[in-house]
């Protein structure tokens, strides 16, 4: 074979370095790689306590080619608001400020700061890489953990009976200018949404479903596959919401059974037939609701 003209599918410059400390197959590390490709180097990242505090590397080393500000677990949105204000004061308003937090830091402990910033319509991008538990401290449940999933604090004889908190619905209710969900299995869609977020003033929120091989009990090589199953089974719809009102569904999958997604992961190993039927029912119901919101 000879040379062919290469048309790169996603921006070529890398703003994330090898040697970072994520587990093999970590969805969150891939997510950061895409995010920075989309945002470019005029970006500052705020990371509260989470896996990414570790992934980014210990002082004096960093995994990112842009500044990172490590901060306390509950403070990502507050720090981002302050950082943006400070940059504005210095006349550097073209810098993209991105808060990058886990689901624990978003749905739970950082929720107050996030809601406040959203209500004030602060001009930054808040990203939740959602691995559906407190992974860095050893897989404890968060309010993002889905119904029936195993974690160390929801063992099989004391499982999580409550559904995953609807963070997208909550943020939509704040009527922020831009809200989106992305998946590492759909890099073009992912990058487009980050680029769009960068171009919008005011509060932006992006949720990434972020497979975690040790936490989800999956093989390292399955992260993309599982991400894709989540979208194809409609468990994780790819969508955009503008000003809390204008809904866009970016992909309308045919809708494979949720079983395909659940069976691929050890954390759902103990689900009964009834549980699966219940989950399917919930997914179908929410999908119908979503379709009504889109039209």
């Amino acid at each position, binding site marked *: 074979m000879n040379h062919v003209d290469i048309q790169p*599918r996603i921006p070529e410059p890398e703003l994330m370095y090898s040697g970072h400390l994520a587990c093999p197959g970590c*969805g969150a590390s891939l997510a950061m790689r895409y995010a920075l490709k989309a945002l470019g180097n005029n970006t500052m990242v705020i990371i509260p306590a989470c896996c990414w505090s570790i992934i980014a590397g210990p002082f004096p080393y960093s995994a990112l080619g842009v500044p990172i500000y490590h901060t306390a677990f509950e403070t990502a949105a507050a720090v981002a608001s302050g950082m943006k204000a400070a940059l504005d004061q210095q006349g550097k308003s073209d810098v993209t400020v991105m808060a990058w937090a886990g689901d624990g830091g978003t749905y739970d402990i950082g929720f107050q700061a996030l809601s406040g910033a959203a209500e004030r319509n602060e001009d930054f991008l808040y990203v939740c890489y959602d691995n559906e538990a407190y992974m860095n401290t050893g897989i404890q449940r968060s309010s993002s953990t889905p119904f029936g999933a195993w974690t160390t604090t929801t063992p099989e004889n004391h499982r999580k009976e409550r559904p995953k908190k609807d963070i997208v619905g909550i943020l939509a209710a704040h009527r922020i200018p831009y809200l989106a969900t992305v998946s590492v299995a759909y890099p073009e869609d992912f990058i487009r949404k980050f680029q769009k977020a960068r171009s919008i003033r005011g509060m932006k929120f992006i949720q990434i479903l972020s497979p975690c091989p040790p936490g989800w009990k999956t093989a390292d090589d399955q992260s993309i596959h599982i991400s894709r199953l989540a979208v194809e089974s409609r468990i994780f719809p790819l969508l955009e919401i503008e000003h809390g009102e204008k809904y866009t569904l970016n992909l309308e999958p045919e809708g494979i059974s949720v079983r395909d997604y659940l069976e691929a992961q050890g954390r759902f190993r103990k689900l009964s037939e009834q549980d699966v039927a219940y989950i399917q029912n919930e997914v179908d119901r929410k999908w119908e609701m979503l379709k009504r919101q889109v039209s």
Partner: protein
Amino acid sequence: MSKKITFTSIADLPPLVVSMGTTEVNATGSWRYLRPVYHDKTAPCIEGCPASEDIEQYMYWAARGDFDKAWEVLVEENPFPAVCGRVCYHPCESSCNRDHFDQSLGINSIERFIGDHGLEFSLDRFKVAEEREQKIAVAGAGPAGLAAAYHLRRLGYQVTVYEKEEKPGGILQYGIPRYRLPKHILEAEIMRLERFGVEIKTGVQVGKDIPWNEFLQHDAVFLAVGVHKSRKLNVPGEDLDGVIAGLDFLSRINSGEDVSLGKNVAVIGGGNTAMDAVRTALRLGSTPAIYYRRTRAEMPAILDEIEEAEREGIPMEFLVTPVELIGENGALKAMKLQRMELGEPDESGRRRPVPVEGSEYVVEVDNVITAIGEQGDFTSIPEKLIEWGVVKSDAFGQTEQRPVFAGGDIIEQPHTVVHAIGSGKKAAMAIHAYLNGGDIATLADKIHVGNKGGVSFLRFRDGHEGDPVDNHEVVTFENINTSYFTRKDRHQVPELDVKTRITNFEEVKGTIDREAAMDEALRCFNCGVCNMCDNCLVFCPDVAIKRRDDRFRYEIDYAYCKGCGICVVECPRSALSLVPEGK
């Protein structure tokens, strides 16, 4: 790799906690226990093609609209793409992985488009490696002989093909009717070989016009004289006027002779000769019918040909055999048939037809065309080379007598055009090895494509020394990541409608157009060969995959790759493998 930073005293520390180095100091490759490697494999279509065309590769170029390049790749292995695109029974398609997804790729129709493209633009950028003195003679200008001549010429030999008939092509010229293979297509593909320096001497019968001993004076000889003697029915009345041997009939029509047939024409047999004869008779204005002693399922003809005959409305009578041809004043009048039933399987695995007592009946016929098979006429070949009606040879066409090599229908192999072409290629390699004091068998491992006996001329010529490719590993459908493909039916081939086609000898099937060829080629999974889709590069969480400096393909930085295996799983076509570390 970024530098390690060492602080030797408090004074070395920066006033603020700011990282100055990058995580590239961490050689995370040490975490790895499985190693991803780029590892091209063999596509099953290529393994399924007896001429080992690099189908996957020409699909790559065809999908990108580079048909010049596609043609070059194709003729690397097979000099007759426009011919094979018309008459090959395409076993490649039955092996195609896409068949398990929606429908197999329309390989044959793309091959035909590429072949026609080559003719349209007079492509003939063949290269002779280096001229050699040695002279090689080929007996028979059928597909086997011509393919051998082609490859030998490319290796630099002085090749002369001796052909008994007036025109070259063998059965392509005198057997297959022009409504399937127009003469100008065949002749254009043969002329290209002549322009390239293959000498074809027609009207010269080896063993007669050139005595065998003289023929043997060449540095090597290749026998590919085909099998053309029609088998006899062995029933009373076979010499009556109106009884014609199938291949003679086709040969006369193909030579432009007027053959007049009566109204009722019975064609006996179920192979390609029978199908060609019956459809030819139809085009001559008769009302022909097929009489076959087994059932449709056992018919040896190419399925396409059976279906086309059916579409043209030709009646087929199964489980019958003629037992007597009845004449009046030396001319055929009727045929007595006996019903058969299927008994135990015979040595070919097909159930043996056995006569049903007392089931005879008579039909009126004006002509009987016999097409129950052809045999070799080996009168001009030394007897010691023959065994069980074929020329004894090994997998590369080497006979027991040096320097005699053989191929095509006279050796033990399926009687198809593409097998003939494949055998010509193998013999060319064997001759080259022989003339250079080598033994082709020692190269077999390097040049085999898959495990069905096919060999690659490209690998033979280039050597592919140090190529890490495990050429024999064939990609299965389970190895394909179908998430990256969408279901899509194959393109239909244009055809003449039945009413018009049966009145003439116009070509029945057409060539798909350029857009269709590109579109169809895009359906190809490109099994086992990296087509630079970027998936591995895009999905690596460790930024361990880089485009190579020449921007052709990729390399993995094993200093950092953690061996997660995502690149391997997400490669749509199994062009990567995961191997245990340290082996």
